[in-house]
């Protein structure tokens, strides 16, 4: 029984390996991640019973880590489907091994974006009131609409592009068979099916781009639509979209590097992919800096007192460490690594990406907390029952409590867990798309040789004597392609 797979020699065997063998390390990883998940759930239950008093939030700073997480996770989700859709539409050939890891990030992380906002609710038991008594004038409803459309699109996108691969798993008889049989929905790879699949993928690609842009735009509108100092800014829409794509690509690079290492996919996820994504990341670094610069220069030059309080809180006040750490993580570190060929290695892009992910979390934190600390009227308590009145103002500040951190870590661990489990049930690199790419290239070469017989003659005169199109290279006969 065990040797059944051995007879079937597939050039992309490495891609099936993670699905076929779930080793000890996998179960160890799942177990350790589950510990964090359970800790997070326990912390949430504690919060649910006791109320939000167990967090560090207060009447002055009423939004904190949870709302930061909400923006952060939804930001990370912009790596996937959006990038994948853009690369597909522009027919970037190098996308083929990248798309699925990217789309998967989107789908999995979106759940935690939505979860973060539900965790933040005071009465989560009433959350369906948002649907039952919807007020479409509220930016939160725009969020709900946009995120749910995005989630639906991303799931359909991920699934549609996975059907042929699921059929391959089904045909190999990998367990659980029933799962693959249902999900493959009768895919046999006929011409008609392929044509339909391509149409469906193209439609979803086009649909998902405006949806993705709208998602982070309306996330920013949650802040920008209020009149709180430094939130009420027209630049927030595009600023958040750029930030989202920025952190998303960084997360994608980290995920790819880990997958490459752990599943030995060095032949599939090559230096070229990291270089290309590195360029994209560099472009986003510059964009991000441009928006940040524009945002803060406008506030500083205008010098409105309410805004300046927030401004100085960030630049020199209590939140200066967070703010400058953000600038270092999001701009200085990437700018030291990404522009140079020497440092733009796989390790280099990973370091830059790690810094960016941390920096972008800090960015959201720094947007939310200092503004709330410096609302127009600072909350204080004055006992006027005596004269002269006694002011008893505790220095209001915000320090996240262990519950908030536990839930954050739990959410993150849950995301990684779902991601890992997924890679053990479905190939993380789109096999059919790789093969399609190869076939297209072979076709191209054939056509070229047909049109230029003199080139064919040249090749035939070489010591090898013939052109061979092996299926053993993931880039698919690329090396045999004659230069034009």
């Amino acid at each position: 029984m065990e040797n059944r797979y051995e007879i079937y020699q597939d050039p992309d065997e490495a891609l099936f390996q993670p699905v076929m063998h779930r080793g000890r390390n996998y179960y160890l990883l799942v177990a350790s991640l589950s510990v964090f998940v359970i800790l997070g759930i326990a912390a949430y239950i504690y919060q649910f019973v006791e109320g939000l008093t167990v967090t560090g939030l207060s009447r002055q700073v009423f939004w904190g880590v949870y709302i930061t997480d909400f923006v952060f996770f939804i930001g990370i989700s912009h790596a996937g489907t959006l990038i994948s859709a853009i690369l597909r539409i522009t027919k970037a050939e190098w996308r083929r091994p990248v798309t699925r890891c990217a789309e998967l990030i989107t789908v999995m992380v979106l759940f935690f974006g939505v979860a973060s906002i539900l965790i933040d609710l005071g009465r989560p038991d009433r959350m369906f009131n948002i649907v039952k008594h919807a007020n479409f004038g509220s930016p939160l409803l725009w969020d709900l609409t946009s995120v749910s459309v995005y989630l639906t699109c991303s799931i359909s996108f991920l699934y549609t592009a996975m059907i042929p691969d699921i059929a391959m798993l089904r045909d190999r008889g990998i367990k659980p068979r029933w799962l693959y049989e249902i999900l493959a929905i009768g895919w046999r790879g006929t011409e008609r099916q392929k044509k339909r699949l391509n149409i469906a993928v193209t439609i979803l690609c086009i649909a998902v781009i405006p949806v993705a842009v709208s998602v982070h735009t309306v996330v920013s509108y949650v802040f920008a639509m209020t009149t709180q100092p430094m939130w009420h800014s027209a630049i927030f829409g595009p600023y958040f979209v750029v930030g989202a794509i920025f952190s998303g690509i960084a997360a994608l690079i980290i995920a790819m590097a880990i997958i490459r290492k752990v599943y030995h996919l060095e032949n599939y996820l090559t230096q070229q992919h990291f270089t290309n994504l590195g360029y994209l990341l560099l472009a986003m670094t510059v964009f991000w800096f441009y928006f940040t610069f524009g945002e803060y220069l406008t506030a500083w030059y205008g010098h409105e007192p309410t805004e300046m309080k927030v401004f100085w809180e960030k630049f020199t006040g209590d939140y200066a460490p967070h703010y400058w750490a953000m600038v270092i993580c999001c701009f200085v570190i990437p700018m030291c690594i990404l522009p140079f060929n020497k440092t733009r290695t796989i390790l280099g892009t990973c370091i830059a990406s790690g810094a960016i992910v941390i920096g972008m979390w800090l960015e959201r934190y720094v947007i939310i907390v200092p503004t709330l600390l410096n609302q127009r009227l600072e909350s204080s308590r004055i006992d006027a029952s005596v004269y002269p009145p006694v002011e008893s103002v505790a220095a209001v500040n915000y320090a996240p409590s262990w519950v908030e951190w536990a839930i954050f870590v739990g959410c993150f661990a849950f995301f990684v867990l779902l991601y890992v489990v997924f890679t053990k049930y479905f190939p993380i690199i789109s096999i059919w798309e790789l093969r399609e790419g190869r076939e297209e290239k072979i076709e191209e070469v054939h056509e070229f040789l047909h049109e230029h017989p003199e080139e064919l003659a040249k090749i035939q005169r070489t010591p090898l004597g013939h052109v061979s199109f092996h299926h053993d290279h993931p880039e698919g006969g690329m090396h045999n392609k004659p230069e034009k």
Partner: protein
Amino acid sequence: METTRRGFLQVAGLAAVGLVVAKPAIDLFSHLNTSGTQAEIADQIRLAMAIDINACNKYKEENGGCNLCEVACHTWHKVPDIPDHEEEIKWIWEDYSGKVFEEHQMKFIDYDKHEELETKLPLVKLLCNQCHNPPCIKYCPTRATWKRSDGIIMVDFHRCIGCRYCMAGCPYGARSFNWRKARSSISNPWRLPQPAGVDDQKLDSDFPSRTRGMVEKCNFCADILITKEDGLLDLDDNGNAKEDQIPKCVKACQADALIYGNLLNHESDVYKAITDAHVHVLRRLPELGTNPNNYYILKEA
């Protein structure tokens, strides 16, 4: 094209169906409640409060402090008394005028002594402004907070999901969130018999106590105001509240510093108070366009 009878009937029928379908659909998506009677009420009643800063502070000075209005309001409305400042809930409270009306203080403030001066300035009463153009209600995803046609901004304690977006929308800090279970911090939450001599207000209050996780604020004592059959409030001819319907804070005030009534009735006390030629009238952050209905009166020295 010739119009046949059949064709005409078809078009007419479709149009009728369209109208029947369109009307509720339009109603469903329109927030503004512009049905006749409510617009009429809004044209006749706008509740407002005038707060006499001088009278309030003079009384405090003479009597060695005073917070009667706070006690009366918070007792009646079962506002929990939470010692932790960061989680406190308040419907009516005070702050230094230097902070509240920062823009009006600038001209005579020596910047080096800013903080010192700020705390020396008189105290002002703060409560929900019941804005004519309230920013908070726009943000509520469930319409748990809304504006009554007489101008009161209400919170539905049974619908609020506790997202705190209205708190982000309110520039006045008028909204409080129930961070914890607070029933134990309420004086007499369950309307148990009180020992003799305790203010009977506590016994009469039917106002519901709140659970953790929802937002609350001053409701201009909407719970004791009586609405007549025609939808109008049961005010007297001059637009002042009748004796049994005077808000708790106003009733408790011994200095007559709080004046309440219908701003649109020019005979009302509140209208007279703010149109007095010898007073300065301030409103909080008028530049935000919220059009607050609380007016702060400063008498000329």
